């Protein structure tokens, strides 16, 4: 079964004093689902009336698959050494 990223691992700063955080994205998805249901109904209506007919079903499925496939994405940013207050930042989606 396909499912979206459930956890985001965020690390700020490098070893040995890195601040690590596991963000429970599954809670965000649940909240978003509740919040987006009315918007989804409006979007469906708008797309049905749009002059350029988007195929809503395949488009929604494609968008969902795209969100799900973000699992495994990793972004690592290291600032220049000349920036004393900047910290390394790593975000990875699981």
């Amino acid at each position, binding site marked *: 079964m396909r499912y979206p990223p459930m956890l985001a691992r965020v690390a700020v700063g490098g070893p040995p004093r890195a601040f690590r955080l596991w963000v429970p994205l599954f809670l965000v998805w649940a909240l978003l689902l509740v919040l987006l249901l009315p918007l989804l109904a409006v979007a469906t209506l708008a797309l049905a009336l749009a002059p350029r007919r988007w195929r809503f079903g395949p488009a929604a499925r*494609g968008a969902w698959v795209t969100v799900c496939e973000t699992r495994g994405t*990793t*972004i690592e940013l*290291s600032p220049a050494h000349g920036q004393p207050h900047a910290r390394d930042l790593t975000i990875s989606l699981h």
Partner: protein
Amino acid sequence: MNEERLRILNLLAAGKISAEEADRLLDALGAPRAGDTASPGGSAAPGSPRYLRVVVESDKPDQTGKVNVRVPMNLLRAGVRLAALLPAGVHEQINGALREKGVDFDVSRIKPENLEEIVEHLGELTVDVEGDRGERVRVYCE
């Protein structure tokens, strides 16, 4: 289980490397992990690249930072499939915008049925660009 993977896990068990280091080493080996499931429909063929890596680094680390981005190939596959759903008028707008930037390319020619071929060829792709200020951009698949 192959020998290299077993060695990494033994090092982890012996406490000689941290879990993060083990994770990084297993990534480098391209080993499948518990959380990584092949996607139905968009699954990668064995031996085909799993990730697109974009690395920006510099000879002068005190002036320029480092960026390291790993994007799953399945995300690219999903993006191309999604792009194929765009109405024709939108394709023309994108083509026009690309032409303005000097890229003469027709996005409507990217078809989902050609996707595996594109991904397969991406595996052989390596972009290596060096800038005037010593920065280096590398794009490759792994």
